[in-house]
């Protein structure tokens, strides 16, 4: 997926953005990354995340990329989504991170 298309909004719906602090004790590691990508995949929208101010946006549906992002404990995560369900996607992902990846929702 081409993340640049998120920069040019209104392709197919409106772009939504969100920001949330990563409170998970060890940062964005295996289990949080799996939870985040699983949730992202439930939405049709293109969803990208990055550590606040990082150069590259990465695909929130790729567990390999999310792990490689190495977001540390306490960092701010920016989320943006583009597509029909973009608003709901951003809200759900912000909730997941803010609630510290609870053990539910399967």
């Amino acid at each position, binding site marked *: *997926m081409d993340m640049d298309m998120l920069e040019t909004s209104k392709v197919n719906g409106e772009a939504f953005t969100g920001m949330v602090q990563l409170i998970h*004790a*060890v*940062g964005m*590691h*295996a*289990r949080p*990354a*799996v939870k985040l*990508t*699983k949730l992202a995949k439930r939405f049709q929208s293109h969803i990208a995340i990055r550590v606040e101010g990082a150069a590259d946006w990465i*695909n929130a*549906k*790729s*567990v*390999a*990329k999310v*792990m*490689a992002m*190495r977001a*540390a*404990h*306490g*960092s701010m995560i920016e989320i943006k989504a583009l597509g029909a369900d973009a608003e709901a996607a951003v809200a759900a992902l912000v909730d997941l991170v803010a609630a510290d990846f609870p053990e539910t929702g399967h």
Partner: protein
Amino acid sequence: MQADAARLAYRGRTASIGFAHGHFVRFNAGASGKRAAGSLREEAEAFRNAVHAASRQIADLAGAAGGEAAQILEFQVALLEDEEFLDPVFALIDDGVAADAAFSRIIDEQMADYNSAPDEYLQARSSDLADLRDRVLRILSGGGESRSLSIPQGAVVCADDLPPSRFLEIDWSGGGGLALLRGSPTSHVAMLARARGIPMVVQLGSVSNASVALLDGEGATLELDPSVEQIGLFERRREVHRKNRASARAILRRPTASWRGERIRLLINIQRVEDLEHADAQYADGIGLMRSEFLLDGTLPDEETQYQAYDAVLRWADQRPVTIRTFDAGGDKPVSGFTPEGEANPFLGLRGLRLCLSRPDIFTIQLRALARAAVHGNLKVMFPMVTEPRELEAARKLFAEAVRSLQADGVAAMLPELGIMVEVPAAAMAIADFKAAFFSIGSNDLAQYVLACDRSNGALASLMDPLHPAVIELIARTAEYGRRSGRAVSLCGDMASDPRCIPALLDCGLRELSVNASALAQIKQTIDRLSSGGSGG
């Protein structure tokens, strides 16, 4: 352990406590032999099929194991469903690379990336990648179904490293143990071993071959082809361990430890904020050592990130004391962009406070974060690897400047109590020259420097004795100076977590020990025993 009694004894790091006495089985987790590559189309097809087969196998394993094991394997399943991860493999195959070589290359790149992280947790995840790589390669080379491993029940399994799915394929129902030459206590397989109660020792270096092994997950030792005497001692340790477990849990809940009527403060060492989640952490008298270098997670953290982490620990501790050690990078803990490269002897190089003082730009950020956090709790800050009093004074000056600058900007900040780690022999011998508020003995490095033994070198295990009279003498002198001058002295090295060292440490005059949370119950029990006239176990 006596060197003469232990003919083939190795020491590593504890990953899971327990005892195993059984056949010694070498296990090679590597992939099988070569396969003949087909056409581009066949290779892509073979790879697609292998991914499906691997997903199914891992899902079956996860289903059978359940619980924590299933969660651990979920990461591998997620990778196999990740197009961004698989696409580069298909691209290589399109370029004419064989499926197995293409997959290995992509996984190895990812592993190199994980391994370059200074974060032990992320490094440990690279063994999950190796696990996945080996499984897919086995399938590609026709090894199809995952073979049930022919390892006798109760065996001590020895491998370079062991991936989580291979651990689950071994039948542990008859006990047994795991001895890894590399590996890490924070790996997924270590979590599985702890959950299953399988003793596990990691980082043994290299070991010779043998038919029988004794694995002591408590003392982190592996003894090969043991003598009757060694077996007798081992079985006694195992029996003591079994009896201790139950009573230790009860003793842990008592408010304080005491020895001969004096209160012994037991604090914990933490590596990460998550270590506070250990069930026993709440019973500690405080945090004796927080290793702040865990924050150096690939990048240098900014002031706000550091402040949040320190503040989280102080809030957890409430009014209990928290001693944070400033970045102890260098030596065996390199950090890119911070530690020097190409030092011939990094353990004797620019590390600890030496390094921080050479990089006041980086150090000042940490001192500002600490000065802000100090307002909220009982914070003490200590500097590692101090040789000369002027190093402490230089750090104090930087710290005071950081506090002044924050206050000038209207930010609440204060200078916490400042102490030093006692780990350089020269500092231990000239201890009275330091105007430190407290001392914390770093017995791992102190012993390594006094004995001139690299503690990661398994061949020196029998010489690397922290109870050597020279080491004990320096500990006793430091404790004695603290007592005379009214300064607190604690010890935060591995010795404090080792029950066999406790009598000597108490005899040295130490009344404050900082241990790993997992050792807290046992150490509290050991002190209780000694206090009531026992021999310590």
